[in-house]
């Protein structure tokens, strides 16, 4: 995807800014841009979230389906990521134009959620070996303003936090087939345990320093960027007393690199550490925001904005 058109002087200006730890929009190298997050925006989905990170706009909808588990993993459910780059973001995405970018993001998400320490697929099991839930996480990119990976991972985690799976009322065995009766009541449902779900942090190498949350202009200045997937900490996502919940250390669940350049191993190591620290802060902030929003929904104070704000 072609970024904004920048002259070489503009690129040098951005580069010098990064070197002095004072970027062109006034942030330091480890600062994120302001974000807006709202969950439960699509009523046709089991869970949804919309995240706006400066100019980047992401809408995530989670749909659930009952499926048969894989024979080699009878006790586990399924999760699938699908990214759609809407042509609303840029005319280049028209038709099949956005497919390459979409695939790279969905593969990255799939890899980050692959380990059981990141997302426990056992909670999606209904009937071992016979029935399980399949989560379709559909990500819609509505506007690109840089740093898509981070925004997508945050929105996905928020949408999964918002997802409710209906309880199974009865299961009838009829020969080899299982006939499930699901509860109709929308409140008679369970929430997913997504405390460990990973967040992706993009580190953009500009000059010889790395910055988090690059804007579209900064992305076009960098030759290589590193994407680190870091698992979350469940303690940020529960309201109860946190003493009996294991304080899980953040782990790296995936690392990927984009761009034509190369990095020295030393820089790589520093960048990964920087990414883990950034992910920890993001995770804490996201947990706080989501819990606050859930609290507001419970006391009926929440006002739904959607795109009308």
């Amino acid at each position, binding site marked *: 995807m072609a970024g904004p058109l920048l002259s070489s002087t503009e690129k040098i200006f951005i580069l010098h800014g990064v070197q002095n730890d004072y970027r062109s929009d006034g942030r330091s190298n480890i600062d994120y841009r302001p974000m807006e997050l709202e969950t439960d925006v*699509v*009523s*046709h*989905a089991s869970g*949804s979230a919309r995240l706006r990170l400066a*100019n980047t*706009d992401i*809408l995530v*909808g*989670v*749909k659930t*389906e009952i499926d048969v588990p894989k024979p080699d993993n009878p006790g586990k459910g399924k999760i699938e990521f*699908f990214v*759609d780059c*809407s*042509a*609303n*973001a*840029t*005319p280049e995405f*028209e*038709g*099949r134009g956005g497919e390459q970018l979409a695939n790279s993001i969905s593969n990255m998400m799939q890899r980050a959620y692959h380990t059981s320490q990141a997302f426990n697929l056992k909670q999606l099991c209904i009937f071992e070996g016979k029935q399980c839930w399949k989560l*379709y996480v*559909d990500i*819609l990119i*509505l*506007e*690109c*303003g840089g740093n898509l990976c981070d925004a997508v991972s945050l929105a996905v985690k928020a949408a999964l936090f918002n997802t409710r799976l209906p309880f199974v009322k009865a299961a009838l065995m009829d020969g080899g087939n299982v006939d499930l009766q699901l509860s109709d009541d929308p409140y008679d449902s369970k929430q997913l345990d997504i405390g460990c779900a990973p967040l992706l942090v993009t580190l953009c190498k500009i000059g010889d320093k790395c910055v988090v949350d690059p804007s579209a202009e900064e992305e076009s200045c960098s030759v290589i960027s590193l994407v680190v997937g870091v698992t979350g900490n469940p303690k940020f996502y529960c309201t109860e007393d946190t003493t009996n919940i294991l304080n899980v250390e953040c782990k790296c669940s995936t690392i990927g690199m984009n761009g034509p350049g190369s990095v020295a191993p030393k820089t790589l190591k520093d960048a990964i550490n920087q990414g883990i620290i950034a992910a920890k802060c993001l995770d804490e902030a996201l947990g706080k925001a989501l819990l606050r929003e859930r609290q507001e929904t419970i006391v009926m104070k929440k006002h739904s904005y*959607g*795109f*009308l704000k």
Partner: protein
Amino acid sequence: MPGPDLLSSQGLRLDGRRPNELRRIRCKLGVFTQPDGSAYLEQGNTKVLAAVYGPHQASKSKTSTDGVVVNCQYSMATFSTGERKNRPRGDRKSQEMSLHLRQSLTAAIKTELYPRSQIDVYVEVLQADGGAYCASVNAATLALVDAGIPLKAYACACTASIAWRGSEPEPLVDVGHVEEAAGGVCLTVSSLPSTRSVALLELSHKLHMDYFDVVLSRAMQGCRDIEVILDRAVREHLAEGWTKQDVVTI
């Protein structure tokens, strides 16, 4: 020919509206910064985003010396419908919708002003609950206004159906998904209400020609009602950031 029961004995529809009532329309212009024009429109539970890029130089294959080429793409988010969709675009229905959208919008745009140019209109349906095409046309019109593209008139679209009250026909305006699924007729009209002309008309299921006029006039009335709402939204959007006094002096 008694159709399915779309009206209760009190004369109310399945979702509690009266036959001549639209669903609530809420809209906003300029939701995004990158496109030249963008709009969001909510018609009941149908939610649509539209973005407009252009006019810009037309791609070689599309260029026309007569006027601007309106390039439309209609896509539906995979989570927009009750059942999950596998593909957001490229299926037959969305391709047909893209063509219909192009027809309605070309009728509204002053195409002769920009020869050899192209206007891209992208519509994304976030939630479909009946009348997705109508909401798309209305949102696209707002996005075109936001992009500052000269229009002959607002293009507004509305659906209408027919129900039976005893033996009297009663036309229904702005058909929702439940009414669509119940299997009545569905007449989609896209019109330029201020010129009182029809840009696109589509009828599904059978309708006796005796009742065609009443249904069409109800749909046209719906279009005129929508035009009022869109016009108010445009004026409010343009007045934003100004004080009330400024608006009066202009």
